[in-house]
């Protein structure tokens, strides 16, 4: 009898996981779609950064010192809003010359006074970042002059006329925007990853059934090792891809005006990672079971349908929940993956709440792993037709 050929400790699940990863990483479609997503994210940030860096610089043609003074005063107003913005007066000889300069694109607008009426001429309707400050300047100057003539002051005239706005939610709008975008990103990333890699688990299971290689594999290693290898391999891939996308997005954010919000996103993001892994694993075994229930690739659509619909349903539901319903949903397995980090971001949870949600998901995973593994074992060697749910769950 020949000697054992090996010194390697057999860890079949690791060998299976390694194959899953290798096959995926050498799959052209996978590489292209990942690169495409990365490029898309980079482009979004680049476009955003490009527009943010565009300082508004407008030239206004003026025919006399009065006009020049108004533009200069308007410049002061503009600067208080955006330090980089510039409103520059350009002296021209006549109104006609100013209008010509506008049509030829040398200036953005021409400002002149005829018969006591100030006119701002532009090619079309004047841009709001030119019209706004100039109009405000003229109004206050004219009002001020009229007030003096009437023996009073502008301040006395306008006293009590100002309306102050207040956001009663207590949050500022940029913060709301960050929460909205982060929440959407948490949900979409998980939704896409579990759908994409879940489908890839189901496909690889059915491929093994269809090519009958499964019989060679299950004769060599226990079914549980095969299932564990598949689930872990795909979890690693899904997690790595998510980290890559999030990483590129975070780098993108540091180049944008929103970089001040990074510290606020850090804690929810750190919670999102374990939620992502546990949530993914909770579904992975069910995907494997869905694969094992068919016998040809064409069967996949039918056997994965309930799972796909549930995912879409949870995703849409999560987007439309708020208040108490959202709080409850944040403990619900799978939904908690993106609802709980969102609540952490909103800042209305204490430390034990995410922990509890995570534990509930781990408990739920334990159930789905057992259920999934059972259907998987049952379906694996059934090579004719589809397996019904009833059939899949009965027997050993």
């Amino acid at each position, binding site marked *: *009898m020949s000697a054992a050929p090996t010194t390697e400790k*057999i860890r079949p699940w690791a060998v299976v996981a390694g194959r899953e990863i290798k096959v995926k990483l050498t799959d052209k479609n996978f590489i292209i779609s990942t690169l495409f997503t990365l490029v898309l994210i980079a482009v979004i940030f680049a476009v955003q950064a490009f527009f943010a860096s565009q300082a508004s610089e407008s030239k206004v043609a003026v025919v006399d010192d009065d006009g020049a003074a108004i533009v200069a005063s308007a410049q002061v107003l503009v600067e208080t809003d955006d330090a980089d913005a510039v409103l520059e007066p350009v002296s021209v000889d006549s109104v006609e010359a100013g209008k010509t300069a506008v049509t030829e694109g040398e200036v953005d607008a021409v400002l002149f006074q005829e018969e006591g009426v100030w006119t701002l001429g532009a090619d079309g309707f004047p841009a709001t970042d030119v019209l706004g400050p100039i109009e405000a300047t003229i109004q206050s100057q004219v009002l001020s002059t009229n007030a003096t003539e009437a023996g009073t002051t502008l301040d006395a005239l306008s006293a009590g006329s100002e309306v102050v706005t207040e956001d009663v939610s207590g949050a500022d709008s940029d913060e709301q925007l960050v929460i909205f975008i982060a929440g959407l990103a948490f949900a979409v990333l998980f939704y896409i990853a579990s759908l994409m890699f879940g489908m890839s688990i189901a496909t690889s299971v059915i491929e093994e059934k269809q*090519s009958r290689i499964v019989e060679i594999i299950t*004769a*060599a290693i226990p079914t549980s090792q095969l299932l564990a290898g598949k689930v872990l391999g795909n979890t690693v891939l899904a997690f790595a891809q998510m980290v890559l996308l999030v990483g590129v997005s975070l780098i993108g954010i540091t180049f944008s005006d929103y970089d001040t919000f990074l510290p606020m996103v850090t804690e929810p993001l750190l919670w999102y990672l374990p939620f992502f892994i546990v949530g993914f694993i909770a579904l992975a075994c069910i995907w494997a079971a869905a694969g094992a229930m068919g016998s040809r690739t064409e069967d996949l659509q039918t056997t994965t349908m309930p799972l796909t619909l549930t995912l879409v349903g949870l995703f849409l539901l999560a987007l439309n929940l708020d208040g108490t319903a959202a709080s409850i949903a944040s403990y619900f397995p799978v939904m908690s993956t993106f609802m709980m980090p969102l609540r952490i971001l909103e800042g209305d949870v204490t430390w034990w709440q995410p922990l509890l949600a995570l534990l509930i998901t781990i408990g739920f995973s334990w159930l789905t792993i057992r259920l999934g593994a059972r259907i998987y074992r049952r379906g694996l060697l059934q090579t004719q037709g589809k397996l019904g749910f009833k059939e899949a769950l009965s027997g050993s």
Partner: protein
Amino acid sequence: MLDVNGITRTYGEHRAVDNVTFDVPEGHMVGFVGANGAGKTTTMRMIMGVLAPDDGQVFWQGEPITPAARARFGYMPEERGLYPKQPVLDQLVFLARLHGVDAGAAKARATDLLERFGLGERTSEKVEKLSLGNQQRAQIIASVLGDPLALILDEPFSGLDPAAVDQMSELLREHTARGVPVLFSSHQLDLVDRLCDSIVVLHQGKVVARGTSRELRQAGPLRYRVVLGGDAGWVRAVSDVEVIDLDGNTAIFQPGDEQSAQRVLAEAVQRGTVSDFSPVIPTLSEIYREVSA
């Protein structure tokens, strides 16, 4: 030694394998024959643990077989297949590693065997690009890569050309020479006769005959052929003799015992020329037809 002891498997009302018992001694090649649906595949699946027997047990080296021992068996299932879209060498290495061979050794061995069977140039080709015969070769290579303790091969020669059959039987002989027991099923009875040390015939789930090819033949009914100078019709009248076939001067008969045969010979000599008188050794196909009738 692999010892199959009374295994039984029932599907609903149908008893696919019924109390099957046989053994595959060390270094022996055992042929497993039987019609389609006789229960060969089900029996092999139960040996490999892919299916659980309803009754009976499989023993390896005298002990009930363990998953660890099975993991070191080489197996080629009837419904064969490899990953269609993965390069052939990659998946041979993958399968060998599942049997516990480390990656380097697996690669070296798979490359050697692929070269030996004329696939050395095509190691990085996807399996689906190979011809069926070459896929079959790869499949057999897959079963021996783990340096198996035993080989269980379901129809390993189907679809192979005669040259490939010779290559593959040579490979199997190398294993039996090292003491590895080999069990394979086949419909090619001449091949089974040529290669195997012993044969197990399965019919409707039951073992209907087993032993060496010589034992099976001897166990068959004793028959003689006699060729005379004149017409052989008189043989019919001899008592305790049943004529199986009669054609002019030639008769094939089955005597009740050796003495009755001698009586036929004596009478034939008395009647004239006897140009041939010999026992008829049945071919394996004839035996097979008889036991599975």
